[in-house]
């Protein structure tokens, strides 16, 4: 009886020690966030602080929203403060896109619009505004621009959009799985957690630390493993027994052409010069074998396309964009052909490293310097 009591006491002692260890990590993470990012010690602290949906279900960055390295200005755009009114003699360049434009893996100010701003800093006539918002689907660019970008009176809008994401969403709409207004691109923002303590802040940091410590090959393997599971769940939800596309049907590409054309015409009607960019990604036949985990992790958002379908989309949309730009007489940049498809330039399938973003920015900057 007595020995049982001591055993239980001993076990409890170790359990409390373990809890205290975890508690210290959590307190450390919160102090760290407070010191590094001016984050609140208690309460919700996640990417939900950065963006929300407006009354029409349109994704929009929250003005002055701040989470870790990401900061929105008072108008809700990532980057420095700007006035709503365009200053005299300034050419305003708005960068439209989603997470690859808003910036994900890059260091602060190293996302491509940030670096574009830096490259054009000697040309005082340009003012670069990162008008992107994470997860905004292409079909809603027009509404978004009308509501949030036109008030800035931009002169140029650079259009960046993932064709894979567009096609996947288009298929979902046509199959009646989601309504046009419900389309969301990319990952959902993380949950806010409990109002008082929020969600754990040490766990994501530890996960990140473990990923940094493990060899890339193991990470690839794990991403492949967990990606497969998530893909299976997403396929069950979105494909409903159908097979993903290996070759994109022409009618889907036609609706892409239609939507992009509508957007460009809308911009031109508003005296804005659009520049259409091909969407660079890590995707290539060789890389599919080299980084299977990376593509598994990426495909869970676009299960309607097989890997072959993704390759087919990239190849055909690249040509299509060039043709659309030519037909409508607008600027066109083939960034996909310029950025090397390797892990020095891409942190994952579609997001850049600082170096990759630098190359995107440099290409656009050179184009703007020559043409405007």
């Amino acid at each position, binding site marked *: 009886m007595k020995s049982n009591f001591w055993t239980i006491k001993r076990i409890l002692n*170790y359990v409390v*020690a373990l809890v205290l*260890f975890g508690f210290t990590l959590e307190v450390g993470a919160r102090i760290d966030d407070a010191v590094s990012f001016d984050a609140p010690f208690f309460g919700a602290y996640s990417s939900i602080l950065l963006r929300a949906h407006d009354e029409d279900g349109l994704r929009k960055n929250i003005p002055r929203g701040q989470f870790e390295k990401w900061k929105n200005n008072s108008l809700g755009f990532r980057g420095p403060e700007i006035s709503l009114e365009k200053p005299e003699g300034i050419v305003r360049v708005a960068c439209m896109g989603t997470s690859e434009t808003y910036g994900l893996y890059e260091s602060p100010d190293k996302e491509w619009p940030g670096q574009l701003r830096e490259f054009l800093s000697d040309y005082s006539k340009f003012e670069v505004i990162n008008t992107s918002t994470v997860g905004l689907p292409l079909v809603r660019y027009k509404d978004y621009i009308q509501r949030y970008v036109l008030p800035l009176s931009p002169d140029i809008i650079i259009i960046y959009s993932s064709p894979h994401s567009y096609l996947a969403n288009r298929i979902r709409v046509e199959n009646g799985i989601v309504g046009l207004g419900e389309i969301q691109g990319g990952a959902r923002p993380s949950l806010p957690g409990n109002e008082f303590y929020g969600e754990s802040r040490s766990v994501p*940091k530890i996960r990140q*630390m473990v990923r940094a410590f493990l060899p890339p090959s193991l990470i690839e393997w794990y991403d492949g493993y967990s990606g497969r599971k998530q893909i299976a769940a997403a396929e069950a939800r979105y494909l409903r027994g159908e097979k993903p596309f290996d070759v994109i049907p022409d009618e889907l590409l036609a609706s892409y052409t239609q939507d992009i054309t509508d957007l460009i015409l809308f911009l031109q009607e508003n005296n804005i010069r659009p520049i259409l960019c091909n969407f660079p990604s890590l995707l290539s036949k060789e890389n599919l074998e080299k980084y299977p985990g990376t593509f598994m992790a990426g495909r869970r958002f676009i299960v309607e396309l097989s890997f072959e379908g993704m390759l087919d989309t990239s190849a055909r949309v690249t040509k299509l964009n060039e043709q659309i730009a030519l037909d409508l007489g607008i600027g066109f940049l083939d960034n996909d052909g310029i950025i090397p498809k390797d892990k020095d330039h891409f942190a994952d399938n579609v997001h850049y490293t600082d170096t990759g973003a630098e190359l995107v920015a440099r290409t656009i900057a050179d184009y703007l310097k020559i043409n405007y």
Partner: protein
Amino acid sequence: MLFNSFIFAVFFPIVLVLYWIVPFRLQNILLLAASYVFYGYWDWRFLSLIAISTIVDYISGLKLEAENIKNDAKSPKRKKFWVTLSIVVNLGLLGFFKYYNFFVSSFEDMMAEFGVHMDPLYLSIILPIGISFYTFQTMSYTIDIYKGNMKPTKRFFDFALYVAFFPQLVAGPIERAKALLPRILKKREFNANQFMEGVHLIFWGLFKKVYVADNLAPMVDRYFAMSNLTSFEALIASYGFVFQVYCDFSGYSDIARGCAKCLGIELMLNFNHPFVAINPGDFWKRWHISLSSWLRDYLYISLGGSRVKTWKIYRNLIITMLLGGLWHGAAWTYVVWGAYHGAILIGYRLLRPVMARATWFRETFSETTKRVVKVLVVFHLILLAHTIFRTSSVLNIWDMISPLFIWKGSIDWSLSIPLLQYIVPLILFEAIFKSDWNKVKKVHLWGRSLIYGSLFYLLAMHGATQQSFIYFQF
């Protein structure tokens, strides 16, 4: 294989589990195989050098002992032959791989001064990591047998394990055979307290290496690459480097000792709070103890040590420290560093009688104040030595140390923040626990959880990315 790498994090637990499962006779074989895998993971070709060293010294040891037993008229001559063979082979390997190009280039420069232009043969060789450590370690075995200080072992694989024992193979401590070999030959029992102390040492060593040293490294590198430093920047660079090198090297030693403890084998203490040394001699009893005691026993004492005329003592000190400097690497900065250390050791000996007569100092200040003053003076003398050690060439030494003596520029306190951020947790932990497991384990388990939790947070979240150990190049 780096201690702070993923591969070691997999390798060591596997070795550890197998080690405590297999019977004693197989434990040493397992450790020997693990040691060769550990070293061969870096470059398997250089395993041959360890094997050569092992075979030569094993045979020399047995032959020396045979002569010790025989003890006939020719024995001294034969003993001299075997010990010389061991020294020539070990120093030959070391000299060839580490110093060949250095001496050739120095000779070429010297001849150029006399107007003779040469075109010597430079070899494209890489330095086998840890060669300075294991050659010194294995040489001590034959020298000790030659001197009659120990008996050789007939167990070849156990001796091979002594030479290649992986926790201390590439950066020490340089263990003497008479200390480590008996521990290898003796049956080990699992001891939970020893094991926990080992885990504590591994953790603390990783903290010093990954959090302090590797985070200070980029800052130090940046300053040492700059020209025209202000005095404050030079100070920050010097303070940064002294803590970087201490945490890098003592961190390695702690991890080595910790791993060995987990395997039930004790290794010697290599660092004993060197920055609280009260005189230059005391510093060498606390810093890289295994090398300084090796140089003392096998070089300084062989030259006559302190039992000779005063000028000869100074000569011995200078020779020992010059060779100690050269041991670190084939560069003139290390020679200057050695000469500087020799000079401060001699300076201290010269000043000692003067200080003994300074009664006002003894009588005016309390013991604590006197100690603090001494510690600060010695620390800054050592700081200067490390600054010399870190400079890229002899020509840059003055550029780096002159701002420390001639004030230049203004003070920008913000520059000290990155330095303080990394050294304050180190100093706090060292001050409270003196890195001593016996002090740590007295803290209640819950308190330890909080301490380890804090240190783990800093190590895991703010540790720098994997970098090699500074002393791997020596």
